[in-house]
């Protein structure tokens, strides 16, 4: 389901003029603080009525101010995870979770309720009022409340910002499941690279109220000029397939005809997945290194060397057999560029540690 958004709105001292098309899947909204992300999300939710708006989801028109069409929020069937939680203070956690659930045309059942509660670790808190929850507990309940409303679209405004890594790792697969199995479109605001790398189908970068960049996650994350995550997080997005799981805990995947060893992936053999390889984690070698701990040594050819910042460069590599090539990115220092004589057409080896393709960066099928 494609989401198409076209908004214009003026606050005093701030003008929003954002237009983007988000393909099916999860669209990450990126942008600095105050750039207009929550404003966009609020308009899509129907809570802010912009001066001009056209919002369409999979052919369903939610708003078209030109034609005077404006579906009220309660008709939009969204699950909105607010940046500021907004739990109902007079209801217990259970009542908060049940609020949207009971209103859904097909209310999520008992089993789904238990699954969400378990994933969010809310079992012990169901009878508690919001005033007695910790910051992270509050945002977990807010997530649960939105997910349990049986929404046809999810709006998530920095849903995991207040959570620890372990809890994030528990919740991320749930968003993946929503995106993949239930194919619910998701608009996801986040500043966290790991989340976006893992979840995003496409990325919309917003700057001062305008869309400054837009594309597939691979495009945006592969371009340090575009990625709002900073150069550290730039990298290649490889479309891969699980070949086999091995006894020593590694999974063998294939991307562009090239075998990659990565820490065990939770997918069946044959399944498609996406691997995010950060440019920073890729080392280049002129000769195949021997006796090293890195398991992935990939023959590649330099396609482009682009300076990044004052002291570094981003090297674009073609890897694998012709016809099924993948693009890899490597971030190196300017000194290495000259020491190794990096230039277009140079053949060399890309070295990548298996552990660099960490669990929370792997895995999404298409």
């Amino acid at each position, binding site marked *: 389901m494609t989401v198409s958004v076209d908004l214009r709105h003026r606050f005093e001292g701030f003008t929003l003029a954002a237009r983007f098309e988000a393909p099916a899947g999860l669209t990450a909204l990126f942008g600095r603080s105050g750039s207009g992300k929550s404003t966009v999300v609020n308009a899509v*939710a129907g809570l802010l009525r912009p001066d001009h708006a056209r919002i369409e989801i999979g052919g369903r028109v939610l708003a078209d101010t030109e034609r005077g069409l404006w579906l009220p*929020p309660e008709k939009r069937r969204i699950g909105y995870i607010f940046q500021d939680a907004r739990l109902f*203070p*007079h209801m*217990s956690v259970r009542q908060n979770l049940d609020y949207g659930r009971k*209103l859904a045309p097909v209310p999520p059942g008992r089993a789904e309720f238990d699954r969400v509660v378990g994933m969010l670790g809310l079992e012990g808190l169901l009878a*508690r009022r919001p005033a007695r929850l910790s910051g992270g507990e509050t945002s977990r309940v807010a997530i649960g409340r939105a997910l349990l409303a049986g929404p046809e679209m999810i709006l998530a405004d920095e849903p995991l910002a207040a959570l620890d890594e372990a809890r994030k790792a528990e919740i991320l697969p749930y968003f993946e499941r929503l995106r993949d199995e239930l194919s619910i479109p998701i608009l996801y605001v986040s500043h966290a690279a790991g989340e976006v790398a893992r979840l995003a189908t496409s990325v919309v970068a917003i700057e001062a109220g305008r869309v400054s960049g837009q594309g597939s996650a691979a495009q945006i994350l592969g371009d340090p000029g575009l990625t709002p995550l900073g150069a550290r997080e730039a990298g290649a997005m490889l479309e891969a397939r699980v070949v086999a799981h091995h006894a020593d805990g590694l999974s063998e995947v294939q991307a562009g005809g090239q075998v990659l060893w990565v820490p065990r992936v939770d997918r069946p053999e044959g399944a498609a997945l996406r691997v995010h390889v950060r440019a920073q984690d890729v080392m280049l070698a002129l000769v195949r290194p021997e006796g090293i701990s890195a398991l992935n040594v990939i023959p590649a050819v330099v396609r482009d060397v682009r300076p990044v910042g004052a002291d570094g460069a981003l090297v674009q590599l073609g890897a694998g057999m012709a016809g099924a090539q993948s693009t890899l990115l490597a971030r190196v220092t300017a000194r290495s560029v000259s020491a190794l004589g990096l230039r277009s057409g140079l053949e060399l080896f890309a070295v990548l540690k298996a552990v660099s393709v960490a669990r929370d960066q792997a895995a999404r099928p298409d």
Partner: protein
Amino acid sequence: MEGWLGPELWQAVRLSIRVSAWATVVAMPLALLTAWALARWAFPGKQIVNGIVHLPLILPPVVTGYLLLVVLSPRAPVGGFLADLGMGFAFRWTGAALAAGIMGFPLMVRAIRLSLEAVDPRLEAAAATLGASRMRRFATITLPLILPGMLAGAVLGFAKAMGEFGATITFVSNIPGETQTMPLAIYAFLQVPGGEDAALRLVIVSVVIAMGALLVSEWIARALARRVAGA
């Protein structure tokens, strides 16, 4: 109690409770609606409605009673029409309740309105995104959150009704068993030399009843507050 008071006064006590309870209960939904309109809607003539709501406070009670009499006496068009429907107020306990309700109305509206204005609209917005209609948002979010204000309004309205004198006696006069509420009985006693003793008894009874209502309301309010603070 009846023994201490005698059957006639006891009748006044019972009547006062009935009148005050009805006045409060019937006025409450109207007060809620009015408070909502004043707090949330923008409509032409809003300040006029606001003014009318406050009128019973501004006018001397006798004047309010007199106005009611002029409008609702059986000979007046409105009053006659209502009387024909069997819904007349004149010289009936319902008229006493009406007068009491009107006198307490501005107090109820204000209390509810203050609460309404303190409700965070973002919570209602959150409920809307979860699929709650306007009505359901009101019933499940707004209403529970303004309960303290409604309670305060009810207490004020009830207490005012228990004490209302001027408008009541002017509108429905003083008919024992029908319109003679406690304040009217008290007034009558105070008009004759040496009547203070009987008046005092009624004062005590009315204070006890109103204090009881007050205590109950405070107790409920504490329970509500505890509910929000977390059980």
